[in-house]
């Protein structure tokens, strides 16, 4: 195992902590400017986190955020900006829902098939951007943004009633999935709710992500290509193949991120299926510094802001706007980007200073006793 490096931990933690503190301070400024208590909203929200039903909502939401953020992070590690996670997970959810409604296998086959369908659909959609990038040099940012819009149009077509759509009242759904494809959750009682079973898939994916990136040849190649394409190419890595593979894996993970809800609760894709998960995933991957544990904390934090803030609307005697949480999320993104850069530069300066001091010390030692050999550092 690696040695515990205080310097590295300090630098890694400083960024997010500074960002959070800055976001809270700035949000408080907004609260004071609008003549409200700058403390009570936080108290109210923390209080919410103590309730078990809110905790269930937070964990369920965080599992979806976590998968979406992992998908984004895989791209980031490779220096690829996959903005298309949003389109990938929505399309994957639709196709999975359709397959789940029309295919009836026993559970032990049905669920793996559904997961596979979700992953393949996501990979197919991100793969288009990957192929365009390696063959034609199209920026994956542009391609994935466009693919998001195309996915929306395609979903509109697939959910027409003469394709796969089933109208329920005024809502358009893909029909209810067969029960064998429902993933059992942990039921904590009627008052509390149910934790999606696929929360554990999210945890497992985090572990797999860490192992693959840090303990395999492939992960090393991926990180190396992300750091410097030319250096990686010189050491025998096929950069084009890496770009395509990273895109495919990113899309496959993205394809999973809507499934905790689909298999665990809604059992159909409808007009009210949540959108925008992919974009929140970008925030979370940034905040978590592409680190599986960091992303987990970031996902829980954002999910907490989402789920605890509605209570602000019902607060007595003074109600607060729950948009406070939205403001905070926006400020966190800003603060994260700025503080990471600041911390990076601060770290560089510290390093330079230390190296300078060591060199000076070494030079002095050399002058003092010329016979002694200087160990290269």
């Amino acid at each position, binding site marked *: 195992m690696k040695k515990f490096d205080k310097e590295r931990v300090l630098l890694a933690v400083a960024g997010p902590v500074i960002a959070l503190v800055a976001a809270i301070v700035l949000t408080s400024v907004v609260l004071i400017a609008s003549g409200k208590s700058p403390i009570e909203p936080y108290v109210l929200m923390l209080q*919410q986190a*103590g*309730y*078990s*039903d*809110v*905790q*269930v*909502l937070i*964990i*369920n*939401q965080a599992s979806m955020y976590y998968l979406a953020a992992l998908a984004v992070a895989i791209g980031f590690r490779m220096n690829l900006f996959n903005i298309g996670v949003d389109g990938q997970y929505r399309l994957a959810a639709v196709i999975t829902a359709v397959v789940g409604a029309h295919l009836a296998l026993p559970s032990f086959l049905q669920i793996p098939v559904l997961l596979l369908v979700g992953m393949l659909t996501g990979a197919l959609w991100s793969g288009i951007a990957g192929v365009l990038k390696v063959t034609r040099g199209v920026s994956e940012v542009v391609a994935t943004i466009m693919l998001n819009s195309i996915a*929306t*149009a395609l*979903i*509109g077509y697939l959910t027409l009633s003469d394709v796969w759509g089933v*109208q*329920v*009242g*005024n*809502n*358009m759904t893909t029909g209810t999935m067969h029960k064998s494809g429902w993933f059992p959750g*942990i039921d*904590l009682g*009627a*008052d*509390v*709710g149910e*934790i999606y079973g696929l*929360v*554990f898939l999210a*945890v*497992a994916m985090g*572990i797999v992500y860490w*192992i693959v990136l840090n303990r395999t040849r492939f992960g090393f190649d991926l990180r190396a290509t992300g750091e410097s394409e030319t250096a990686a190419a010189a050491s025998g890595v096929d950069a084009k193949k890496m770009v395509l593979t990273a895109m495919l894996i990113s899309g496959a993970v993205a394809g999973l991120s809507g499934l905790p*809800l689909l298999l665990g*609760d*809604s059992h159909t894709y409808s*007009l*009210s*299926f*949540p*959108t*925008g*998960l992919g974009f*929140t995933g970008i925030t979370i991957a940034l905040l978590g510094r592409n680190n599986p544990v960091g992303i987990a904390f970031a996902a829980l934090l954002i999910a907490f802001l*989402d*789920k605890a*803030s*509605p*209570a602000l*609307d*019902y607060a007595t005697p003074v109600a607060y706007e*729950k948009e406070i949480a939205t403001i905070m999320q926006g400020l966190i993104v800003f603060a994260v980007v700025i503080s990471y850069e600041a911390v990076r530069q601060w770290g560089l300066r510290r390093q330079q200073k230390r190296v300078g001091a060591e060199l000076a010390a070494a030079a002095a030692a050399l002058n003092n006793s010329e016979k002694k050999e200087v160990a290269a550092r």
Partner: protein
Amino acid sequence: MRRVSRIAVAGVATAALAVTVSACGSSSSESAGQGKNLGLALAYDVGGKGDQSFNDAATAGLEKADKEFGYKSTAVEPQDGESDADKVQRLETLAKQGYNPVIGVGFAYAPAVKEVAAKYPKTTFGIVDDDTIKAKNVADLVFHEEQASYLAGVAAAKATKSNVVGFIGGVDVPLIHKFEAGFKQGVQDTKKGVTVKSQYLTETAAEGGFSSPDKGENAANGQIDAGADIIYAAAGLSGQGVIKAASTHKIWAIGVDSDQYKQAALAKYKDAIFTSAMKDVAGAVYNLAKSVKDGKPETGEVRASLATGGVSLSDSNPAFKNNAEVQAAVKKAEEAIKNGTIKVKTS
């Protein structure tokens, strides 16, 4: 091997921790206060307050009930990207706090209303624009939008000179298809050879089809270029852009949901608003609150039609009211729909 097992232990421990953490603490609805009836509660769908249309109409009903019954009602907005579980929690909190009735504004609330209504049998729930929930304490507040749209079609067919009329829908969903179907049928039954140009602004509500006046204006300009001289907009806030474009090009627009001729935000363009196909969400919300107040809560499907007055065509623009030919045709169609000789299609 050793490392893998350690990771496995860590994973299991995290999972176990997650479960135990969530098992502790009471649920938020358990600890909420309970007391007398606080009034009615509205839970909005995405779009929320200030859309000058559907959601605001519901708010108007709430304000009327507040004034008459001395209620202190509340209205809560949703968040982007929420799921049914969040809606369930919202409705549950409102019911537990003592609001009665609790109304979900928009069909997206249907699964949540179904679930929460079963848990709170003493509270009356309302759901706007959905007729799939059948329970003793649930009132499905639905509308024959296609009937008012049919009349709008009749008026448009009578008023057009270019024989091209336009329909602009906010989002391409079944609910808005009803507006289009009624409008088209009304045009075709009234005057042969009139073309109806149809356009939807977006595929999903998240893209802003109900909330982007600029999108409405662009679409309207396109239809005007194609020769349309009267455009019916069923597009929420985006309809304002349509009305603006109509006013600029001196053609007619037909408004939707409330009487848009009378809206302050549209006062500048009101002369271009021929009429509006009204959907009385305010009335439906108020009536449900009143029925609860009177101790005889509405239940089952409460469908507003031309016959009940819940949908209608407004006549506040003198240019429309004093046009005898149009009025005669509209009155005739209205009678025919009421007595059943005209059946209006819904898709």
